[in-house]
């Protein structure tokens, strides 16, 4: 499967449009509410992480996102990124899933293996869009410009400091990709 990755500025535009449509204009972005109002259920699955370090997953019919309820108790901020990442797949990658993949258990497994082989591009893309949804460019620049530390900004946006560090690198790098 050849997949043409979107540029970071394209993803930025997608995120801005999506947040505007959902009336999310100040931090912290209520990613859960956006997801549910987009018609997706958020379904808690206790112990999901036990199955191969899984933190979240998007259903094949794009009707729901599963997350680990126990992880949420320990690391609620991390779960927000997981949910945003799965929402990003919902926004960007619906057309990558062929109906056949969801016809039998065996085809599902085979389809997942095939998807995994090609996954680096669209997983990266989902990470980038998730970061832009949780920490939108315009708001980020405002807080960054006010001299706040990464840690302080992370608290304002209710994300981990790692998300802010990555957003900072992407936002202020000379070449955007």
């Amino acid at each position, binding site marked *: 499967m050849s997949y043409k990755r979107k540029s970071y500025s394209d993803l930025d535009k997608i995120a801005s449009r999506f947040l505007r449509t959902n009336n999310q204009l100040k931090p912290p972005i209520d990613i859960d509410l956006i997801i549910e109002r987009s018609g997706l259920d958020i379904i808690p699955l206790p112990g999901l992480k036990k199955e191969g370090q899984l933190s979240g997953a998007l*259903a094949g019919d794009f009707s729901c996102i599963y997350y680990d309820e126990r992880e949420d108790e320990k690391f609620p901020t991390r779960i927000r990124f997981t949910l945003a990442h799965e929402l990003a797949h919902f926004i960007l990658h619906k057309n990558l899933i062929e109906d056949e993949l969801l016809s039998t258990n065996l085809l599902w497994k085979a389809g997942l293996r095939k998807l995994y082989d090609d996954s680096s591009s669209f997983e990266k893309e989902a990470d980038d869009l998730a970061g832009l949804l949780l920490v939108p460019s315009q708001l980020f620049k405002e807080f960054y410009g006010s001299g706040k530390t990464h840690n302080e900004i992370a608290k304002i946006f209710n994300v981990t400091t790692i998300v802010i560090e990555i957003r900072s690198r992407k936002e202020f790098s000379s070449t955007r990709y």
Partner: protein
Amino acid sequence: MTFGEYYKKIRLKLGLSLRSFCKQFDIDASNLSKIERGVNPPPKNPIKLNMYIAALGFYPGSPEHEELKSLAEKARGVFVTKGLSDSDLIKKLPVFLRTEDGDPLNDEQLDKLANKIKQAWSKDTPDEL
């Protein structure tokens, strides 16, 4: 409209996501998610039912409280879980999986995952309700 559908509609109208709502009111998110999806019936215990309705901000006598109570009563005894057929259940299996180490799941892990997903779409036993 079922109890679960109406409950979710009001919750979202109030701007409350499932996770924040359940944390705020100490409600079991798994159970509420199943009630809203029509997998589990609404609470049978009147105290618990009132507590669920009060969490939305509706108290006895309000139209919403009465509507929710009436929908819960309607479900009592005639509740049919929205159990999924095997072909529908396969569509609920995940296609995008986020693992912390980035590694794919092996067959055994995928089987366990499929089983977990099946549980999320199956009615809880009476003891769990």
